[in-house]
């Protein structure tokens, strides 16, 4: 690994892979760093090694990753898998750990393609073993062929819930019930966005096919379920919920939940890139222009880490950001960049017609985002409840960071990844302001685990 690259790409999902392939063969020094052992990101996880039977269940959308990964493998971009990036600053210095050796490297252009994380959604009992995110269930299958053995309850809102249910159905998993917490009022709010969504109707058709197959197979879906609770002494035993005005309990040792996905912004945050609240996507994302430029010169973003638009858009955005980096490096002229980006810009725009509809349809209700159940744990690491956060606000600690200092929430091992959004929502709710006026935790390096030994292994030359 060099100490300096002209272009460094962080993340091996669709955006990162497409950017790397674009930068290949241009005579520049370019490397891609990724935490996983193989290319694909979360969406195409294990794409190179997946057995045929498993790939079939995952479908053609998943198999698209094969082409992307193969093109990347053929590129001349240096590839460093199992590499952790623990720091990025506005001087374009990157702290990394590769094979237990830490290093600081620099680059002229850095593309952060960090992808998305599942939106953490606190509810009573969500820390019990047996409660997992739906994406986790899907990763278990993609990466290891691991599926539920004694049935599963699926709960939440969003396309992934439906997709996972359909995949489990193909695999013969017993789906006890699907608890769809999407408020019925969302249907009305989403209706005006439907005509534009019809321009990307293949997404809608797919959703309808999944729904039809599930209902034909007799899988029960409780639309408009609410008051989701996971119960058990130390392990999940049952799930409680309200449906059509009545309380229900269902026994299960596994509950998979999904509440949409949000950008993984810890690196761009700690670098100091400007971020903004996206009201429609209900999350923060780094500010960027149509080429992926952030507020810091030479730091670009693409893919879901820049704002949620899905895997196909990520691929287009990755190529566009790759072209932008080549332009900045003086490889392409402005008109060459513009010309080569045209198709991707066109297809990306077409692909995104579905987003406003999806965002309105699957918007998470305010009552869930800022829970009023004071007993619910918000910070899983430091075990801080919603009540403690509200109390901190009431005693004059008016922002996420103030609440963090006084309660320790967000100071645990995950560095606030699981509670930042919820804390912002609760702080805003308790203080009577809009969440867009609220603040996100300040991110600081190291943003990934780093032992003292690894820190000490920084050599003199690369510590300067």
């Amino acid at each position, binding site marked *: 690994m060099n100490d300096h690259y002209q272009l460094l790409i962080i993340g091996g999902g669709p955006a990162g892979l497409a950017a790397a392939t674009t930068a290949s063969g241009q005579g520049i020094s370019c490397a891609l760093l990724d935490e996983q*052992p193989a290319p694909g990101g979360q969406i195409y996880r294990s794409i190179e090694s997946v057995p045929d039977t498993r790939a079939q269940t995952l479908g053609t959308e998943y198999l698209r990753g094969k082409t992307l990964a193969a093109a990347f493998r053929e590129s001349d971009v240096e590839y460093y898998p199992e590499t952790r990036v623990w720091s990025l600053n506005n001087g374009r210095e990157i702290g990394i750990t590769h094979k237990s050796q830490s290093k600081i490297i620099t680059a002229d252009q850095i593309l952060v393609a960090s992808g998305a994380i599942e939106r953490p959604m606190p509810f009573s009992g969500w820390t019990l073993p047996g409660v997992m995110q739906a994406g986790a269930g899907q990763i278990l299958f993609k990466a290891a062929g691991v599926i539920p053995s004694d049935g599963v309850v699926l709960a939440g809102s969003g396309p992934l819930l439906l997709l996972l249910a359909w995949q489990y159905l193909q695999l013969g998993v017993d789906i006890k019930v699907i608890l769809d917490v999407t408020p019925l009022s969302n249907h009305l709010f989403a209706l005006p966005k439907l005509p534009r969504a019809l321009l990307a109707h293949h997404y809608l058709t797919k959703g309808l096919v999944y729904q039809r197959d599930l209902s034909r197979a007799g899988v029960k879906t409780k639309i408009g379920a609410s008051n989701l609770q996971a119960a058990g002494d130390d392990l999940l035993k049952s799930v409680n919920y309200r449906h059509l005005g009545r309380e229900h309990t269902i026994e299960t040792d596994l509950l998979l939940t999904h509440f949409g996905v949000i950008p993984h912004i810890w690196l761009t945050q700690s670098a100091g890139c400007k971020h903004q609240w996206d009201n429609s996507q209900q999350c923060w994302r780094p500010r960027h222009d149509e080429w992926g430029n952030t507020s810091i010169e030479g730091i670009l973003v693409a893919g879901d880490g820049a704002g949620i638009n899905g895997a196909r858009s990520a691929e287009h955005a990755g190529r566009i950001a790759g072209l932008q980096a080549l332009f900045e490096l003086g490889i392409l002229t402005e008109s060459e960049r513009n010309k080569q980006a045209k198709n991707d810009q066109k297809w990306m725009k077409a692909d995104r017609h579905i987003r406003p509809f999806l965002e309105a349809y699957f918007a998470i209700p305010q009552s869930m985002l800022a829970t009023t159940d004071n007993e619910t744990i918000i910070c*899983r690491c430091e075990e801080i409840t919603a009540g403690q956060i509200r109390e901190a606000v009431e005693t004059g600690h008016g922002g996420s960071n103030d609440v963090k200092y006084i309660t320790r929430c967000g100071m645990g091992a995950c560095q606030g990844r699981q509670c930042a959004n919820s804390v912002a929502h609760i702080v805003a709710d308790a203080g009577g302001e809009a969440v867009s006026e609220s603040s996100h935790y300040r991110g600081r390096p190291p943003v990934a685990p780093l032992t003292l030994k690894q820190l000490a292994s920084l050599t003199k030359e690369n510590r300067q």
Partner: protein
Amino acid sequence: MFKQLPNDQLEMVDILLNGEKIQVPLGTNVAAMTLSQGQRYTRTTSLSGSKRAPFCMMGVCYECLMVIDGIANQRSCVTYVKQGMQIETQQGVGSLPEGAHHE
């Protein structure tokens, strides 16, 4: 809770899970392997001692911390099974095995 579908394409390796010798497919992530062995939790918290299990499976929630080859606080979902690996449920901050020292 979970089971692993058979996969003939993978080489099997011997590992120790909480002291028990078992055969598992090479390269499976440790969290997936642990869950498919019927273990329902992977750590207890250092504050209340409550049990926790893998939650996100993508390296961001830090709930799947385990003691792997004597080193505590390893994210089992981004660690991959190798021949002879020793994996243990983590109790609290993770006490060290006898004679070991913090890496």
